[in-house]
């Protein structure tokens, strides 16, 4: 989230699209009801299904899954055509005026530089035109045909209301109503918040779905302001923390990146991470990259990380591929190239696409270790559960080791919520049976590994044996110790350069925050963006002061919000070029003539002049990017692509299947299904009664939603002779499942490109372990392909067929 949950109460318009906040985030949804009840805010829901969010919405519009970009670019087009742009904001705070290199174009669904064989682009034309001074050339009048604004205008022109209806199936009048409501927030005194989740991410163009809305929010002037923003509703408790702390195969903590194999030494690695400003006087905060990176290395390897060995840079693994995402991992496992798997807090057998392939892959492992508080399906993948897990146990050699771990309520530590708040919690109960904290288990494994390396040597023991392990009990690091390490501390005294007798940073003290981190090895910090969470003031994550000066929704003394306890990112953009709030009634910060002050921690240097330094300090431009240069694999602008399995060909580029830059493994390509055999557009989702695959282990939740079902429209039910509550078989080109049917008015057929498209809804909470009735999940059916940029699987749009069947024999 750019903003926070509490800030949603400040909005005028909530758009829930690509998510279902009322069902999947019911507790956070209270802030929507707050905004509605106290501010008269309106709620729009755009979804293939009439959800429980839609049940309390002011306006609902249906959309075919996988067509959000067409819808959103349609809204951008509407705003441009109808002069509903916050011009002062868009001109000053986005890259709209910048010129793009000659040669860049978009034609027949492809940007310049496409290589079909590689499914990749040569992105050299996707960049700005630089002037002789090394800065981007800009045309503040927005007249130049190659300025970003005109390219955008041209790019979105095809997304007329008629085209939106044709692609999305959203009736034109409903689309126009939504567009008009959104466009009203181009006023500096009106704002809209976007609440989205996996409904946008789980597509082969998930990242671009989100970009499309971010671009709309930028031209409406809704980023950085109270009640505005791009608000990703994170699904798992602490998935935000997982991302922040860098538990992705290509990331290091705090969104630093792991080197690739071409970056053989420190200098080479840093050479592409200079972040020189692209416009005069801009902050380009990533210029501090080296400080955060070196401080991270110091936290990892302590005394073994020295200036002489470039702070143990060589100890870092180097990636030979863009990333070992889950799809690649299971592909390698399936090929027999990866034969041991540690599975911690994860249930791949139900969470990863094409379950048959997942089962086959797990069956090829030599060992599988499952660390989980629950007896998961993954841990039992080898066990025959009839049709629900029809495996031949005798043929599976994988050794499975289950390490029972603890639940959040049995542990102490912090959870980072969607709004970037690090909230400390305390153990409410003791772990049952043999369950142990994850940290205890990890410490045992590490101690065992280190002893082996010390004893037996090995190819490269240093990264393991030299790992900095300064915990009081090496077998059981405490949450406090880990949090302090993440915050960072002073390794060596640092003195004032003008007065060497004056110690400015004292050895052994916690650093106050990341502003004092250094690139000379005198500071350490495990995750720079979290720095400030546990400093000499104490554990700021444990703060529980509910004060909120003037009731603006900032709550500055409740927990700790990264970065620097800032509650609204880009809050400098809530003010105009003179530093005055666009909307005085919605002040967050303002320029008092000498510095920035206000309710929130300014997202800008305190004395950076408002007419000089741009608000998007993390970007080398100082502005936000409508055109994103070569930073996305699949295009500098979002463009509509159909899902890989789509009921219709792409009306804009019929020859292009799916996202042309998305990676597809060969065997998976062969398993894509076509609309002639699989005519129905399926989607997967969660229900409010359950939390993923966890709560089916809980009696109460099992009572509230006991058994697997699929949802279809009354029209499809009639066509296929399916009765409400009757049994159906649903199958894709990968597998077949059995379910009861819920026949509902909440799903209606859509007319797309002249064809009637029926939607089949498949909720995902059932498996073969736990208290609920045994059932299937949508991942039995879904295709093994992910987003072009981050490989999130395409769970939200795929093709199935359906038929009525007799009830199974009990």
């Amino acid at each position, binding site marked *: 989230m750019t903003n926070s949950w509490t800030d949603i109460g400040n909005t005028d318009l909530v758009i829930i699209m690509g998510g279902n906040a*009322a*069902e999947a985030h*019911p*507790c956070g*949804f*209270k802030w929507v*009801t*707050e905004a*509605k*009840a*106290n501010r*008269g805010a309106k709620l729009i829901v755009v979804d293939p299904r*009439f959800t*429980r*969010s*839609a*049940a*309390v919405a*002011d306006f*609902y519009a249906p959309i075919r899954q996988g067509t959000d970009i067409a819808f959103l670019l349609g809204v951008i087009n509407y705003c441009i055509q109808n002069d509903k742009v916050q011009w002062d904001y868009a001109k000053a705070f986005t890259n709209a005026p910048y010129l793009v290199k000659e040669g860049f174009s978009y034609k027949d669904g492809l940007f310049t530089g496409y290589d079909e064989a590689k499914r990749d682009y040569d992105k050299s034309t996707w960049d700005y035109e630089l002037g002789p001074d090394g800065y981007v050339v800009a045309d503040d009048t927005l007249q130049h045909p190659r300025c970003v604004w005109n390219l955008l205008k041209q790019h979105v022109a095809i997304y007329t209301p008629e085209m939106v209806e044709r692609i999305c199936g959203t009736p034109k009048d409903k689309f126009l109503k939504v567009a008009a409501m959104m466009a009203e927030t181009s006023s500096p005194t009106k704002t809209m918040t976007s609440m989205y989740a996996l409904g946008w991410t789980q597509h082969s163009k998930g990242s671009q779905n989100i970009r499309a809305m971010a671009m709309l929010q930028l031209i409406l002037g809704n980023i950085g302001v109270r009640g505005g923003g791009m608000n990703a509703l994170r699904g798992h408790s602490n998935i935000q923390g997982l991302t922040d702390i860098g538990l992705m195969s290509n990331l290091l903590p705090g969104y630093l990146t792991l080197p690739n194999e071409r970056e053989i030494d420190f200098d080479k690695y840093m050479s592409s991470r200079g972040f020189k400003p692209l416009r005069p006087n801009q902050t380009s905060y990533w210029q501090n990259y080296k400080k955060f990176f070196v401080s991270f290395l110091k936290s990892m390897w302590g005394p073994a990380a020295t200036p002489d060995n470039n702070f143990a840079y060589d100890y870092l693994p180097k990636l030979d591929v863009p990333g070992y995402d889950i799809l690649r991992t299971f592909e390698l496992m399936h090929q027999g190239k990866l034969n041991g798997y540690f599975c911690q807090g994860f249930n791949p057998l139900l969470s990863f696409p094409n379950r048959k392939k997942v089962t086959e892959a797990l069956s090829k492992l030599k060992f599988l270790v499952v660390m989980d508080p629950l007896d998961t399906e993954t841990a039992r993948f080898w066990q025959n559960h009839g049709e629900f897990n029809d495996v031949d146990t005798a043929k599976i050699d994988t050794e499975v080791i289950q390490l029972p771990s603890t639940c959040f309520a049995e542990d102490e530590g912090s959870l980072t919520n969607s709004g970037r708040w690090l909230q400390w919690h305390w153990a409410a109960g003791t772990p049952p049976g043999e369950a142990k904290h994850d940290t205890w288990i990890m410490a045992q494994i590490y101690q065992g590994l280190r002893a082996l390396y010390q004893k037996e040597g090995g190819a490269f023991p240093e990264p393991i044996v030299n790992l900095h392990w300064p915990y009081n009990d090496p077998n059981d690091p405490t949450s406090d110790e880990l949090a302090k390490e993440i915050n960072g501390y002073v390794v060596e005294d640092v003195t004032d350069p003008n007065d060497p007798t004056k110690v400015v940073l004292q050895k052994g003290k916690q650093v106050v925050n990341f502003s004092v981190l250094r690139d000379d090895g005198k500071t350490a910090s495990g995750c720079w963006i979290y720095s400030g969470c546990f400093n000499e003031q104490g554990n700021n994550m444990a703060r529980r002061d509910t004060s909120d000066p003037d009731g603006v929704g900032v709550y500055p003394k409740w927990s700790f919000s990264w970065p620097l306890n800032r509650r609204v990112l880009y809050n400098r953009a809530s003010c105009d070029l003179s530093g005055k709030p666009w909307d005085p009634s919605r002040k967050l910060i303002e320029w008092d003539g000498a510095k920035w002050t206000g309710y929130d921690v300014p997202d800008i240097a305190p004395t950076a002049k408002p007419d000089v330094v741009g608000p998007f300090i993390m970007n080398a431009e100082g502005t936000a990017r409508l055109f994103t240069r070569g930073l996305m694999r699949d295009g500098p602008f979002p463009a509509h692509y159909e899902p890989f399995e789509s009921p219709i060909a792409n009306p804009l580029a019929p020859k292009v299947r799916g996202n042309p830059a998305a990676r597809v493994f060969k065997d998976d390509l062969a398993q894509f299904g076509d609309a002639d055999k699989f005519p129905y557009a399926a989607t997967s989702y969660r229900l*409010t*009664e359950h939390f993923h695959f966890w709560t089916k282990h809980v*009696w*109460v*939740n*099992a*009572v*509230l*939603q*006991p*058994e*697997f*079902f699929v949802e279809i429209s009354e029209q499809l039910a009639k066509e296929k002779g399916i009765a*409400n*509550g009757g049994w159906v078989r649903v199958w894709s080109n990968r597998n077949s499942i059995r379910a*009861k049917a*819920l*026949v*509902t*008015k*909440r799903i209606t057929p859509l007319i797309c490109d002249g064809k009637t498209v029926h939607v089949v809804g498949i909720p995902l909470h059932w498996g073969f372990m736990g*208290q*609920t*009735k045994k059932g299937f999940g949508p991942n039995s059916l879904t295709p093994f392909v992910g987003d072009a940029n981050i490989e999130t699987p395409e769970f939200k749009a795929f093709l199935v067929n359906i038929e009525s069947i007799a009830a199974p024999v009990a």
Partner: protein
Amino acid sequence: MFPPLPNVSVEPGPPKLSNADLVKRSASSVPPPERQLTPVAKLIDVSKCIGCKACQSACIEWNDTHPEIGVFSGSYENPPDLTPEMFTLMRFTEWVNPEGNLEWLIRKDGCMHCEDPGCLKACPAPGAIVQYSNGIVDFVHENCIGCGYCVRGCPFNIPRISRTEDKPKAYKCTLCSDRVAVGQGPACAKACPTQAIVFGTKEEMTKHAEGRIADLKSRGYANAGLYDPPGVKGTHVMYVLHHADKPEIYANLPKDPKISPIVEIWKGMFKYAGFVAIGGLAAFSFLQQVVSGANRVSREDEESAKRLTGHAER
């Protein structure tokens, strides 16, 4: 937002609700209480409800009931009906409004805590059903004989008879009288994430409802209103409805609930003649019919009742 309910006080204090606060007691009488408690109410704002079933979950947890894990039966309603183990239930209705747009109406069903409780009137077991001066209607299980008269007496079809125990007994929502007794609100209200369920004095709740109704009217729900039916002299569980003119679209919420005339007669017989005075087979068979007949009052029942009470339609 309505002020959140406070957490439980750990300080011991006098009970805020006890037998001294009873104003009605089934098949018996109580002395007038020395104090009059402020009437309470739970307000369920259907327009804010997201159907998450946190209320059902909290109800199960607080009351320590054990509803069975059922099967999918063609709807989001689970269990499919109220049971002796499930005192409250989200009822889902797909309703197409006159403009042709779908509305998904979600109503939390459960005891309405009528000011004039039909269950209590119908109950033949002394002290099995009581009403406190704050309006809460509670079942006292040690006095319950499981006869099911309360079911017939209830215009909302709420109580359910447990057949799994040694002796059958009737169950329903207590409005968390045990929580109210220590200054708390009901568990469902505590758990509700959107404050679609709020609890306070009836006066506060009525006032809060007015604000909600004004908001709904501003959003085009011209018939938004409060459901506090006069046929049972008002209820201590009230609804804010977007379509208060059509309560029946919310999973058959009665438009004008009234206590069945049969119960009024029975009550009259008891009041004037006393239970033991109804001798003979006739009375027995009449009662049999009341108890083991269909769960709903049939037209014949109504008519014969009206005849007996001299209100036959002419």
